[in-house]
């Protein structure tokens, strides 16, 4: 399987994501922001970082990058797409996912491991997890406070589209939401970084539970 990782100016988890893709035995493919196509990849990860310096708003400029047009086509036609942290922010700005990510309520950057619960396994990025499984994953963000209007939140809950939920909410997210998926379920955005816990040398491989899922169900 070939998994693409988008690289915007200011992305800084791109190399970590490419490394993690190698760790799960897939072929990593760099997708430069100015590329006009996705090089035929089977899945895409939009990694974390500070694309375009987070200037204006996290993700607000990245969504206009050239690579986003083929990415949007890919995502809308069912291609497995995972946004991590800044990648989640980019996907909401591109309206591939509903809602927005606001400043953390305590107004500080937060970098720590948090416990989350896998709320649904019917996405290409959680299909290898057990329903209700608890994972310890790192977060590192300034704007991870998920916000959506009440109707959207109800829809997300009713349609089983909350993917990860914090057990100890680090940022004030509505409904303790740590990750959601699209209506088609193939596009997933999460704030925690599975690629940072994908190596026993670093003390945990819990992130592989998420990343390996895509090998099982490439298309939904």
């Amino acid at each position, binding site marked *: 399987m070939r998994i693409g990782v988008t690289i915007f*100016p*200011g992305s*800084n988890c791109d190399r970590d994501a490419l490394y993690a893709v190698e760790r799960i035995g897939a072929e990593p493919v760099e997708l430069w922001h100015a590329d006009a196509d996705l090089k035929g990849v089977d899945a895409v990860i939009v990694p974390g970082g500070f694309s375009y310096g987070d200037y204006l708003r996290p993700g607000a400029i990245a969504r206009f990058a050239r690579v986003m047009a083929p990415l949007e086509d890919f995502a809308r036609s069912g291609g497995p797409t995972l946004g991590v942290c800044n990648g989640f922010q980019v996907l909401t700005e591109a309206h591939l996912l509903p809602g927005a990510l606001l400043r953390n309520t305590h107004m500080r950057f937060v*970098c720590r491991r948090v416990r989350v619960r896998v709320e649904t396994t019917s996405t290409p990025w959680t299909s290898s997890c057990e329903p209700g499984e608890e994972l310890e994953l790192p977060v590192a963000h300034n704007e991870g406070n998920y916000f959506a209007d009440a109707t959207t939140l109800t829809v997300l809950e009713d349609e089983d589209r909350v993917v990860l939920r914090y057990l100890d909410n680090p940022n004030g997210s509505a409904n303790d939401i740590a990750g959601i998926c699209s209506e088609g379920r193939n596009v997933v955005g999460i704030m925690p970084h599975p690629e940072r816990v994908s190596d026993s040398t670093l003390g945990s491989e819990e992130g592989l539970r998420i990343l390996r899922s895509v090998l099982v169900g490439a298309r939904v």
Partner: protein
Amino acid sequence: MNLEETYSSLGLSDHEYDRIIELLGRAPNYLELSLFSVMWSEHCGYKNSRPLLRRFPNAGPRVLQGPGENAGVVEVGEGWALAFKVESHNHPSAVEPYEGAATGVGGIIRDILAMGARPVALLDSLRFGPLDEERNRYLFKEVVRGIGGYGNAVGVPTVGGEVEFARAYSGNPLVNAMCIGLTRTEDLVRSRATGEENLVVLLGSKTGRDGIHGATFASDELTQESEARRSNVQVGDPFCEKMLIECCLKLLEEGLLVSLQDLGAAGITSSASEMAAKGGVGIEIEADRVPLRESGMEPYEVMISESQERMLAIVEPAKVDGVLEAAERYELVGAVIGRVADHGELRVKTRGETVGSVPAGYLADAPVYERDVVRPPYLDEVKTLDLTSIPEPEDYNEILLRLLAHPNLCSRREIFEQYDHQVGTDTVVLPGADAAVMRIKGTNLGFAATTDGRGRHCYLDPKGGGAATVAEAYRNLSCVGAEPIAITNCLNFGSPEKRENYYQLAACIEGMAEACEVFGTPVVSGNVSLYNETEAGTVYPTPVVGMVGVLEDVSRHATPGFKREGDRVVLIVDFPVSLAGSEYLEVVHGGVAGAPKSPDLAREKEHADVVRRLITDGLVDTAHDVSGGGLAVALAEMAVAGGIGVEIDETEIEPKFGSGRKDIGLFGETGAHFLIAVPEERWMTLQRSLGVAGVPYDDIGRTGGDRFKIGDLIDLELEDVEEALERDLFP
């Protein structure tokens, strides 16, 4: 402004001005004077510290690059090398804390990048006045925010550091940033300009008026007027820096650069003149070809601007198109701004006409001031400590909780959680341990790093404190299982023109140098920050040591937290333990006095080496050194970090170093004290190993339960201990 006012406003003395005339054989023009002013500042020229710095040992089997380049470089093994350096940004942070700290981080990252290494880790040593003053709270909060704001965005993890608070730093905080970069040994680059007709290419940001005369500003005392010099402080753009890192590494990988240098203090002037002086060539800069962000800038402003996120490269003419194309791909400004020439001068031109020309060697060769080293009388006054005036505590529980909640001893979680410490996915031991441990992908190798400073100790005893600072770093690396290999340092002192400060500088250097010799950890890079004083006084003499070490097998490391219930807790013992200059004395009794124990360097090394061997042999996974706050505080840190209680047999501790006083045993400080914990099944083996090593030790207690107990003196719920330790530093 008359002539004298002009050069003295630029920070040059009469003597220095005369020297310039003598060197040039004529009077300099304003531009040339500006070049001398910045290059002959203490910050760039080390004119007061150079003779003293020669005392440091610089050589060692692993040293690939010692002082004199942008950073020191040491060999790790398997073809890997580490480039590292620590640098101060004290003055900018005193007047504009967020940007001062942020650009301090940005600047040290570019020093590492200039060696051809990928920056992979940051650490910070910080000092502030007490948090009961609002200004100090503001400086502290904004400096931490600035470090995070820059480091998080640029994608280099902040993996360690330290902070302390003392009245001596009120108004003059210390902000020292250390960066470590990783490279293949064959990929190292130097900053030497070579090849006549090669081109000088400026990469990165446009040049503006920010930071004009910043190096001169940093080489003067802070006064009320300093606030008005905020325009001397630069503004950082981590986004641009991130692109600069990726661009430069790409250019080096493709072999497009002859040499590379960052632009730090004194901007193009220092970079170009240093590159020229090292290569024994000249460089011509065409000031009108430097891309500017504001109009109407004079050539001298262009030459000494300290606009951030810029690098200077020497490029062969045939490769320049490739370099400029790469700059464009990374959305950076790239411009040919000059060329290498054979005349040995730093020559500045605008619209084809020469507007200033000075031999590059003169700029790089600031005058040197050797001063008399005279022991100041205050040292005799502070060393007396009358213990009878210090009442023994009645309630040890209360005293321990007070110590743990003190800003100098409490958990740093509130700080390091504001820093991304995991980006790059190489951080094996996260902040909060004795040192950070990083792995090198694709190998079993790891490296560890720590920064340490002991200002109060250096104030009470400069030489002993200097040695103790290096010893502390040596202990911290050993406690995680790393073999220390080299250090970088940042010497934060007051004005060297005052005898007391000059003595402190000289004595601290002597102590540090002796320790480095015994430990086999040469000094490979460093930075000097003098003039750290305000109208209210001078900072504690605070040399900060950044030490790096190597782990042959990164999985064999230790952390302080207790791992299991029922472990034996073992103390490796050093004598004597004393309250002199201790944290307990200051926090509980308000005293800064006494003659702290000078480290017994041979014993320090022996004990630390034993602890490291126990870890690398796989026998011990739990280790911690006893430092500020003494044994009781160290035990509390281990219990809280592991979430496991402990019961200590006080009778095992007290008689040995109590001299009748229990507070000395619990809170006194010494040098080579270590705590380790092992499960029962390894206890026999451990005893054998310690016996063979011949170090004194005691089995002092057992882990387990949810209480923190030391004999009859201390009995607390672990939860309460944790609550004290984990207090909020940013209320």
